[in-house]
């Protein structure tokens, strides 16, 4: 075939040569990959037998919750669901009036079930606000819980600044000492 003939053929079917060149490049890549892999001290098997242990951090669905002062009127309000996220023992020792215990374990399993339970509770009671308080440490378990609830797209989620220790200092009318 003359050079002119070859050029005409290329113009008529431009994609054929293109795909052929691309395929040849991939073929060369496979040969090079196989060669270099064989030359390795510890070749990577072409087909993985065991599943990989993937180390992806769990997505933390966190939203923004509003900070409340310990003496906020919202805490004792009838339209508010109040949660104490400290341990059952700490809750038994002291808790704010009307607070339900919902222990938060930093190292525990995902809390999706608890979040769903609170969402149902909000729907059932028709509560307008959810207030959470925790141990008041840094980081504060109450704030983390509140952010998790906000991340689950629950609205009007608040946490008490300073947690239980701060609430305890508020005049006794809103507190329960069992």
């Amino acid at each position, binding site marked *: 075939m003359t050079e002119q003939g070859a050029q005409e053929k290329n113009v008529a079917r431009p994609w054929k040569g293109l795909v052929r060149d691309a395929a040849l*490049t991939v073929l060369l890549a496979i040969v090079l990959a196989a060669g*270099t*892999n064989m030359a390795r001290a510890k070749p990577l098997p072409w087909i993985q037998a065991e599943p990989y242990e993937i180390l992806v951090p769990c997505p933390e669905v966190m939203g923004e919750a509003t900070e409340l002062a310990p003496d906020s009127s919202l805490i004792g309000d009838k339209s508010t669901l109040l949660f104490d996220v400290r341990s059952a023992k700490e809750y038994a020792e002291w808790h704010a009036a009307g607070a339900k215990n919902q222990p938060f374990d930093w190292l525990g399993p995902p809390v999706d079930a608890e979040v769903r339970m609170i969402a149902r509770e909000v729907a059932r009671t028709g509560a307008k606000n959810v207030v959470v308080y925790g141990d008041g440490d840094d980081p504060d378990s109450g704030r983390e819980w509140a952010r998790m609830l906000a991340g689950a797209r629950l609205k009007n989620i608040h946490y008490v600044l300073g947690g239980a220790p701060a609430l305890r200092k508020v005049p006794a009318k809103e507190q329960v000492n069992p």
Partner: protein
Amino acid sequence: MSWRGHAWLGLAARLYLGFVFLMACFHKLLHPDVFALDVATYQFLPLWAINGFALVLPWVELLAGIMLVIGFRVRAASLLVALMMVSFVISLLWALHLDLDMSCGCFASQGATQDDPISWRTIVRDGVWLVQALYVLFFDREPLGVERLVNAVRKRRAAQA
């Protein structure tokens, strides 16, 4: 289509894309086992395909990068780059859909999550590179480079003979 400026614009796009791919293939060629783990992290390919993909892709990137830079079989290289970019964008969209908090793995391993985390920015960046590859593929019909030079020399010799 036959505007001569395409060759120069194409050259700029080719050099940029070529160096991006040469940089991208480096750590993957050196550490295919780490890259295989990166690929697995996307949870996109079936297990049997992960290692083969991790072994071959860096070489395709290297060859395509070299071809783009030196101007050899440029359109085939840009076709490969475009196909790779499409697959990368799909993988990134998949990872975003799964809400995976991970590194892109494009230039470094998952250990460097903070350096190149997956986001819409990563997808836009890959989209821009895809457009560049498509520009070279469709508009740079007479690319500047080694192949054009060799053809010119051949023609001159044929004319002299």
